[in-house]
């Protein structure tokens, strides 16, 4: 059949080009997702700094200002298409600033656009991840003298990040696909390769099939990888007993003090359990 032989011919001739495109797509998605997560973390952390009525007005003013800026950032970048953001940043900035501000490398522009986009999505996820951790743990940390920073880095964030792993994975997979709009700023990722190739030979559908299979193969691999990472973060589902000697083993087992002794917790005299 023509269709399969066309695919075979395309692959024979352009396999390296396709592969390089996919390499660029993956690299961009990985780097931008990582940077986006860092942006999201910073925003989420800033957004959850505790602020009470007793705090000095200066602190409250700055926290309010920071929250307002983050809010605007999130709404603007979540609420507009990434293609347009790319156009604004890559073509618009030099135009507005009379070339004072322009990107020498299309890579830098692409990473910037995808990163701040991902950051806008992650900011809310991180905030949700942080506030979903039982405040009791924060109090536990405070009660042994840990400060806000120590509490965040040792207790809250490790759990928040574990909880938002599915969202990080989602963003990564979305980034693998949505970086395809970066052809608009001449970034040669996997989809741009397809556009270039079909412009030469008009084999649209066979090439599109290669693209579909390529994207699916990569996103399926990414899902599997992410699930594996999540499992590893959860640790073992069972634990080993550390046996030292019989004495410490026995120390864990407690039996009620004998009835009638002053230590009898089951005594009914003062509302012990049996009286209830």
């Amino acid at each position, binding site marked *: 059949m023509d269709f399969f032989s066309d695919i075979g011919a395309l692959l024979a001739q352009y396999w390296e080009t396709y592969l390089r495109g996919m390499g660029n797509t993956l690299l961009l998605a990985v780097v931008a997702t990582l940077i986006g997560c860092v942006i999201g973390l910073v925003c989420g952390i800033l957004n959850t700094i505790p602020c009470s009525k007793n705090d000095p007005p200066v602190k409250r003013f700055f926290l309010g200002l920071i929250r307002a800026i983050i809010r605007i950032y999130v709404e603007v970048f979540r609420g507009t298409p990434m293609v347009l953001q790319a156009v604004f940043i890559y073509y618009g900035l030099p135009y507005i600033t009379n070339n004072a501000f322009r990107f020498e490398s299309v890579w830098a522009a692409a990473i910037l656009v995808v990163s701040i986009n991902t950051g806008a999505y992650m900011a809310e996820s991180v905030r949700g991840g942080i506030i979903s951790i039982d405040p009791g743990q924060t109090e*536990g940390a405070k*009660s*042994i003298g840990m400060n806000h920073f120590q509490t965040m880095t040792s*207790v809250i964030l*490790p759990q928040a990040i574990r909880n938002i792993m599915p969202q990080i994975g989602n963003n990564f997979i979305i980034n693998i696909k949505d970086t395809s709009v970066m052809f608009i700023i001449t970034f040669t990722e996997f989809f741009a390769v397809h556009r270039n190739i079909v412009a030469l030979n008009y084999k649209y559908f066979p090439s599109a099939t290669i693209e579909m299979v390529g994207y699916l193969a990569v996103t399926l691999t990414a899902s599997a990888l992410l699930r594996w990472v999540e499992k590893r973060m959860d640790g073992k589902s069972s634990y080993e007993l550390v046996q030292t000697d019989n004495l*410490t083993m026995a*120390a864990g087992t*407690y039996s009620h003090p004998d009835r009638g002794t002053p230590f009898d917790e089951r005594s009914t005299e003062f509302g012990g359990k049996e009286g209830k």
Partner: protein
Amino acid sequence: MSDAILEVRHLSKSFGSNEVLRDIDFDVRPGDVTSIIGASGSGKSTLLRCINLLETPTSGDVLFHGESVITGGVNPNKYRAKVGMVFQSFNLFDNMDVLKNCMVGQMKVLKRSAAEAEANAMKYLERVGMAPYIKAKPRQISGGMKQRVAIARALAMDPEILLFDEPTSALDPEMVGEVLAVMRSLAADGMTMLVVTHEMAFARDVSANVVFMKDGVIWEQGSPDRLFREPETQEARDFLARFMER
């Protein structure tokens, strides 16, 4: 009176217009167990939380070794490291195993080395009978075990006083005993403790002083013998009578 380790002076706390604590005044002496009893909603938790500065009192003072922890320029984190707290809901760190739970504060706050922190943590985990479980995560152990780990975590900071907020109220009945046994042994060793509890037998046996609260006010305090047998106020009589009916 200045041999007290902790002095609560005319302490009041309001949440908005809701006055939860009014003019609370009592002392805790080194080596003593002080129990706070009273119906739920009477402000016992809020009092403990004011003492270790998880809440800011509206007025009044808390003196630690005679020095105000509210106006005295005391660093709250340093102070809290010396005043351990055991919560009703354990509040262990879910991302760490039992051993790490007892080490992290020592390393981050007291700047102890990992080896030193581990040795000290093991000492107290053995003491509460949790040494075999050091590799378990909090979600893998029972409530009674969690509470014993929480006690070890507080002890590992080598605090000068331990605050307990209803440490056995969230436990299944069969686990209450193991936690009370640990607390009894701490009391016997001369640990200074301030304990909010509904375990009247425990309060009676180990306390030097029992404080009865109702509606944010201390109605009476005194030796357990006196307070349990001959309560002076009608409020305390009613509370104890109702408690024993159940």
